[in-house]
């Protein structure tokens, strides 16, 4: 049995970059093809569990390098299979679905945009525009800590509520400005109330500069209130079929 690590799937005629560095002992990355679809593979460390920092970074770098130029469906980490299974169980039975998914992402790269409120400026905004919050805040400041417990929960609740309302508006604003420049958008769950934006965009390669400029403009418009981070270009992680 040969353990094989799968990074992602490409169309069989894809040319891989020359200097890919795999996470296995050999460091080599190659392909296993079946008709019109191919898997990007390598050997895998067998004397220790997968999951070190190096493993994760290697997985990502291989995909980044390929995604730079070609459509690739990225695998989730880790993706280890028996070598025979690559064709028999992965590529052959699902070829059509993979080819369809590859066609949908052809010529597109992913960008992930995240935005988070600058805490103090926005808290100040919220507090100064809400009398109930101000009064509660004063009350809490006057009471000793254990006496103000339930008031603090209430205060926090009001603040979180107000922040959530604001982030809906700001978040929608950002999305509406970028949506026209993307072929597809995938909105991710935002757990924290101060998260304004967390979305993945599929952008045509020849529109990347335009998209980047638009994000820069948004960053300038929100400077001091929202801190943005743009990740990409990436393989389309958020746009892979569910299976």
């Amino acid at each position, binding site marked *: 049995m040969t353990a094989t690590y799968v990074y992602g799937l490409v169309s069989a005629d894809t040319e891989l970059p020359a200097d890919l560095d795999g996470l296995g002992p050999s460091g080599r990355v190659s392909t296993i093809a079946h008709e019109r679809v191919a898997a990007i593979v390598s050997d895998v460390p067998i004397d220790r*569990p997968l*999951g*070190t*920092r190096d493993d*994760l970074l290697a997985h990502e770098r291989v995909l980044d390098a390929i995604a730079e130029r070609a459509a690739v469906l990225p695998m989730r980490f880790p993706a280890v299979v028996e070598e025979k299974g690559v064709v028999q169980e992965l590529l052959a039975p699902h070829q059509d679905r993979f080819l369809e998914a590859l066609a949908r992402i052809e010529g597109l790269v992913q960008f992930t945009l995240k935005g988070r409120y600058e805490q103090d400026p926005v808290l100040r905004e919220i507090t100064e525009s809400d009398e109930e919050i101000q009064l509660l805040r004063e009350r809490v400041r006057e009471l000793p800590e254990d006496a103000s417990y339930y008031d603090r929960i209430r205060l926090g609740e009001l603040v979180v509520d107000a922040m959530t309302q604001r982030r809906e508006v700001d978040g929608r604003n950002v999305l509406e400005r970028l949506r026209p420049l993307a072929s597809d958008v995938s909105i991710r769950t935002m*757990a924290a109330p101060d998260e304004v934006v967390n979305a993945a965009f599929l952008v045509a390669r020849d529109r990347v500069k335009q998209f980047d400029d638009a994000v820069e403009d948004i960053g300038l418009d929100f400077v001091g209130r929202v801190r943005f981070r743009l990740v990409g270009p990436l393989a389309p992680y958020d746009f892979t079929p569910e299976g």
Partner: protein
Amino acid sequence: MGLITGLLTLPLAPVRGVVWLAEQIQEYAEDQYYDPANIRAELERVDEARQLGELTEDECVAWEDELLRRLMHRRE
């Protein structure tokens, strides 16, 4: 602080002695320790420390590997 509020929000249950309470605390502490959201937040802090030069690269890498081990820990 978080630990106390966690305890206060637990559903009321007959306190079967100190052992039960200790188990609740342990479970809560473990929840926090293994929470992927917390681990990822900590990964960000490592990056920050790295960029600010607060830690050496070796220290950052060691910390990150430890966080990943925690992240990968399979909890029953």
